[in-house]
Structures are given as structure tokens and as C-alpha cells.
């Protein structure tokens, strides 16, 4: 078992928060894990991505060029990372910002990869939490991979939020569940 995941989007979309949460959940699951954020110098705006590797064996390089999984949160990220996805790899795509109908070679891609279009922004807005699109994507990732169990995720989330932000636990979980549910209902 080994997943190489890249999450990518705008700064401010909670990319790093989500990446960190996945890594932590996977660690709690007992996996080896590395999490490598990459970001521009600006505090907001600009692109932002991170690489998470989850494995049962020692992870040497925390970098991969050909990830096996992608979470694509905006269009520039789609352009940048899609071409590098490993053959047979999976990708969750924020369909609010990357519309399937606007993708030229959609069919070719769908043959090579498993694509999960999830309108994470819209989903998050349904619970009045537009900032939580990242958690929707994370829920989708969970539902697809089941690389960690819910209990570990919840623990990880609680830990990450800490006491000052503990009131955000429920909304985050809600968004997570929405994402998971969306996969459940729309794929497979």
C-alpha cells in the first residue's frame, strides 16, 4: 500500500490544512507518512500545493513527480498537475472551478485516470461554510481511499483545531461528511 497524493489550489483554500489533516490521520492509522508543503512568498493568493506520501514502508523521498492521487482545487493546478498523474491514478477535481465541460481532452483523461468531479465550493456553501471546501475534498478522498478510519480522522481534526478553534470541529466534520456522501452517491 502506498499513496502519493498532491493537493493543489489557491493560497487561502485551506490546501495545507487539508494536507496536514490527511497526513496526521494516516499517521494515527499507523502508516508511515510524509507531508511536504510548497507555497509562494505571499500570505494569500498565489498557488499553493502539498505532497503527502502514505506508505507501509520507510519513505525516503518526500517528493514525487508522478503522484498516484491528486486533489485539484483550481484551474491552474489542473493544468500543472494533471499531466503528471501516474497511469491509473485518481483525481478529485473541484468542479466549481474546473468545469468538466471546459476540459478539452476529458475523454482521454477519463480513460487513463479515475476522475472524481466534486463541486466542493458549492457543497461547502450548502452548509454556509464556503471556507470548508477543503474539508469536502478531504471527505471525498477518505471515501475513495479509506486509507484511515473515521476515528483517527476525528482525532486528527480535534488535535489540529486545538482548543481555541474547537468550535469549528462540527462544521469541519459536516463538510467532510458532505464530501464523503457526494462520492458515495455519485461514484461507483
Amino acid at each position: 500500500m502506498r499513496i502519493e497524493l498532491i493537493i493543489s489550489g489557491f493560497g487561502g483554500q485551506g490546501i495545507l490544512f487539508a494536507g496536514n489533516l490527511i497526513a496526521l490521520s494516516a499517521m494515527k492509522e499507523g502508516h508511515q507518512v510524509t507531508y511536504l508543503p510548497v507555497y509562494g512568498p505571499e500570505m494569500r493568493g498565489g498557488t499553493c500545493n502539498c505532497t503527502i506520501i502514505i506508505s507501509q514502508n520507510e519513505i525516503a523521498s518526500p517528493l514525487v513527480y508522478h503522484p498516484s492521487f491528486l486533489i485539484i482545487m483550481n484551474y491552474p493546478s489542473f493544468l500543472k498537475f494533471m499531466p503528471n498523474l501516474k497511469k491509473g491514478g485518481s483525481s478529485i477535481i473541484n468542479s466549481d472551478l474546473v468545469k468538466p465541460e471546459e476540459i478539452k481532452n476529458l475523454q482521454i483523461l477519463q480513460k487513463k485516470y479515475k476522475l472524481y468531479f466534486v463541486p466542493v465550493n458549492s457543497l461547502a456553501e450548502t452548509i454556509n461554510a464556503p471556507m470548508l471546501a477543503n474539508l469536502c475534498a478531504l471527505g471525498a478522498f477518505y471515501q475513495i481511499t479509506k486509507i484511515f478510519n473515521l476515528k483517527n480522522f476525528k482525532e486528527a481534526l480535534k488535535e489540529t483545531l486545538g482548543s481555541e478553534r474547537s468550535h469549528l470541529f462540527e462544521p469541519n466534520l459536516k463538510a467532510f461528511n458532505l464530501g464523503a456522501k457526494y462520492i458515495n452517491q455519485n461514484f461507483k
Partner: protein
Amino acid sequence: MKAKKILVKGVEAIALGALEANCKCYFGYPITPQNEIPEMMARELPKRGGVFLQAESELSAINMVLGACAVGVRAMTSSSSPGISLMCESFSYIAALELPAVVVNVMRGGPGLGGIEASQGDYFQAVKSPGHGDFHFMVLAPYNAQEAYELTAKAFELAEKYRNPVMILSDAILGQMKEPIILKNLKIKEYPKNDWALTGAKNRPSRIIRSLFLDSQELKKRNLKLKNKYKKMEKEILFEVSVENNEKAILVAFGSMARIVKEVYFILKNKGYPVGFFRPITLFPFPVKPIQKILHNAKNPLKFLVIELNCGQMVEDVKLAVNGKAEVISLFYPPSVIPFPEELERKIKKWIK
């Protein structure tokens, strides 16, 4: 809190290591990609009766460290390439004054302002001349978070043991990536400082800590003392080696780059290529003898491929160790474009076909 597994950035592991070593003072100045160190120290040190002070510059920070060390208190600073360069004059003083300072350099791309991504471009600076005159830091290069944590803690012990500054040489990859570490009780030894620290001349003659020796004989003596000390430090040499003596090529790398190289080593090994792996952990003193041992035991003519995130620096130390007895090849990756394992594999294969 012992034997707990947590997910942290490399730089946080460094801060935790310093706290584990009971470092009492942190002085520093912000610079990406290592701000998590001062930020953690700002939160944690006051709780533990320590001092966190952000200085007005690196120049000031390193001299605060100099002061605190001179009175016998464990102190450190951390920075990244440009900030480290700014400290060079003071480094030379600290080494000359024989103060046990711990300095962390989380390297970024240079020269100049460069970029904030990973680099190993300060190898020469760290190892050959972090300032004017004949002096050396002991230089430790961790390659994962656990090592970053443990080596940083150890750095305080080594600094006191030799009364010499120790540098943790890391980079933005290791610094910014997160991975699990296990918190341990590292049992860091504290060396007595009551025979040299400036604590007020009570019940003893007053003391001087100085680096000015206008009498050239005295200056010579001090320089030879330092030289001997560096010799003695060779006892502390650390390295990682995976060699079975039937290799045709040894991949040599340190720090984060060694992780990528190790990945490639695993891949090539699996594919049956005759490659070995060597990773210096102490960069100064450099593991000369372990390299010579590899040469000595080798059953085949060897090639050393030295892979670095710079324009070729450590390769010189490998060449000096090998001393013409094998081919030494520099595979250099100027900052900040980090080669992916896939790419590196192709490149290495060309050399060992």
C-alpha cells in the same frame, strides 16, 4: 510527553530537540523557511523559564547568543542562508572565544535573496569558512525529522564538550515537510562551565573571554589549540552507509537530498544495479576514514557519484577523501529545482550503465 509520536515539520523537530536539551535562550530574527523555530520557541520557552527574544537583526541575535553563552547559559539561534551570512563575523568571534553556541541554518536557494525553496548551497560556507580566520563549526546534517530532533539536542552537548559552536545544517525540504517523530528522553549531558563562564568574580579571580591576541605567539597558540580541537572532534564522526563491497558505484549525498538519493538507491538496488549508498551526517568533521574504508574493502573499481542541491561543493571533500583512488563524479542540481527520484534515477543510470 516521552515516547510520544507526533507529526511535525523538520524545523519544529529542531525546536523540540533544543527544548529537549533544555536550551534556555533563543535569540533570532525571522526568515523563511524557518520561522516555525522562533515561533515555537516564543510559545514554549517562557513556559519553561527560558528566554525568547526576537532581535532587531541576525547580527544582533548572534551576539545575544554570544553573550548568553559567555555566561554559561545554553543558547541558540536559527536562520536561513542570507541571515547566516550576516552572522559570519560573529561566528568567527564565537569560535575564537570558544563558546558553545548552537546555530541552525535552514538553507534556501542562493546566492543573494535567491528563493525560499530548498538548497544545499551553503555547504562550503558551513564546512570551510563560516567567517574569517582558521576556525570550524562542527556541522551536523540531519535528513529526517527524527534526526533533526535528536541531532539538535545532541548539538548542545557537543558544543559544550568541545566548547565550539555547532551548526545544524538543514534545508527547506526537511525544514518544511512534516513527518512523525518519536519524542524521547535523550539524556543530553551538560558539561560543567564553572571553570570558564563569566558569572561574576565571586570567590575567584576575575575572568576574561577574548579573541584579541596581539602577541603573535599567543595567537598562534590559540590557533593550534583550535586545530587540535578539530582533530579531536573526529571521534564524533557520524554517517550512514549501505555498502556490500561488490558495488561499482557509491551514491553519496547528505541532508534532504540523501532522501531522494536513497529512494533511487532502493529502486536501483531492487533492479539489480551494483550501487551503494553513503550519507555523511557530520559534515565537519567529514567522514574521511569511512570513505577510505569503502575504497579499501571494495572488490571492484569504484565510482563515487556525489549528488547535491548546489553547483558541486561536498564533492570536493569526497575527492579529498578518495584522493585519486576512484573516479568522483559531481551530479549537481543548482538550487532550487529539486530533482524528482524518477529524474535522478535516469541520470544515475547513465553513469553506471
